[in-house]
């Protein structure tokens, strides 16, 4: 087993080209991959925010990547390859939905690979982004997303109007999207 089996750079393009990654000899490809796909699913879900799209995209990753895996290489390579494929699939998803080329979408928020799977990292990152916002922006996003308030409820809570909250929500999202965290 050599390191050549591992994708040198888990870029989306590599995944699209069908690089072969070897699997541990003692493991059956699908058995190992299905557990790894749990992580892929969580990663994709954390980027698209809904189950139906996350399932479709995870399925795409599985169908693209699994046939290219073989017995024999470290599990880390398998995971890296699956994540590379996931990034590629996510790129295609955002590109199709937003009508933009993938080159316009090289966005950390949309596709950046997590350091250690998903765990709480995604949540932590969101929390840190919110911390960077002004009080009003943070409040509107917390109430709307984390507490599930309707616009009307947010307006009542913030003693504002629905129209003003809607505008504030947009500005808060734009501001949050601009936050760059030091990793």
């Amino acid at each position, binding site marked *: 087993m050599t390191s050549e089996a591992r994708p040198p750079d888990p870029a989306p393009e590599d995944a699209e080209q069908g690089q072969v990654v070897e699997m541990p000899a003692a493991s059956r490809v*699908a058995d190992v991959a*299905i557990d790894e796909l749990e992580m892929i699913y*969580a990663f994709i879900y954390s*980027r698209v925010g809904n189950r139906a799209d996350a399932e479709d995209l995870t399925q795409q990753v599985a169908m693209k990547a699994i046939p290219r895996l073989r017995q024999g290489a470290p599990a880390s390579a398998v995971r890296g390859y699956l994540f590379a494929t996931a990034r590629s699939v996510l790129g295609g998803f955002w590109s199709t939905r937003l009508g933009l080329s993938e080159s316009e979408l090289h966005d950390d*928020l949309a596709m950046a690979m997590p350091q250690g799977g998903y765990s709480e990292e995604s*949540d932590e990152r*969101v929390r840190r982004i919110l911390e960077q916002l002004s009080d009003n922006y943070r409040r509107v996003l917390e109430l709307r*997303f*984390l507490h599930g308030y309707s616009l009307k409820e947010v307006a009542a809570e913030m003693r504002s109007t629905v129209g003003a909250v809607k505008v504030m929500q*947009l500005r808060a999202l734009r501001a949050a999207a601009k936050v760059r965290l030091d990793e």
Partner: protein
Amino acid sequence: MSERPEDRVDRIVSALLRGRRLKLRGGDAEEKEAIVLAARLAAASRGPQRMSPAFRQQLVKQLGAATPQESWMTRRAALVAGLGIAAGAVGGGLLGRSLDGGGSQPSAGAGKVLEPTNGRWIDVGALADFAPGQARMVKAGAVGAFVTRTGDGVSAVSSICSDLPCELWWDGSQHALVCPCHNRTFTADGSSNGTYKLPSLGVVQTRVRDGRVEVLGA
């Protein structure tokens, strides 16, 4: 008349908060950063997600693999159903249980054990009728509870959200108890999901007698 940016983004946010697919229209790309961020926030509000058992099985089938049944069950037990806890606790007799683990976030801690005044044990069905890992709603007099089978035992949590006075429902695909009032979810053992933790659900006392599940109601 073209859609205003705030309306455009709120349409997408509202759909995301209802758990719907991202359906984008022409022109939505103008707000791509906000939309992508909204999707991340919507995901973060629900915490780390796992594949539903149905989707997982579908994937296994598609991958042409026989499901590794034993390890799959163990995984489910550890992460969702809490079967591992039950394995050590099965005695066949009285299993009044305070949950101190077994959900996907056991460290969050169990809720307060409910002690109904003049409580009485109420039969809510045969143990065999409770599918492992799936919370099922029962009424024990005035006490509503979601009962989850854990091996040969059961555990239960209150059917009322710990934050708002709303009745929860069980989403089997998410393996979560969902509060319809504010889009928050709890694990089957009552722990709050998501970044901002709510108090855990109250623990409802249960026991198994002669293959029948009983809940301490009022």
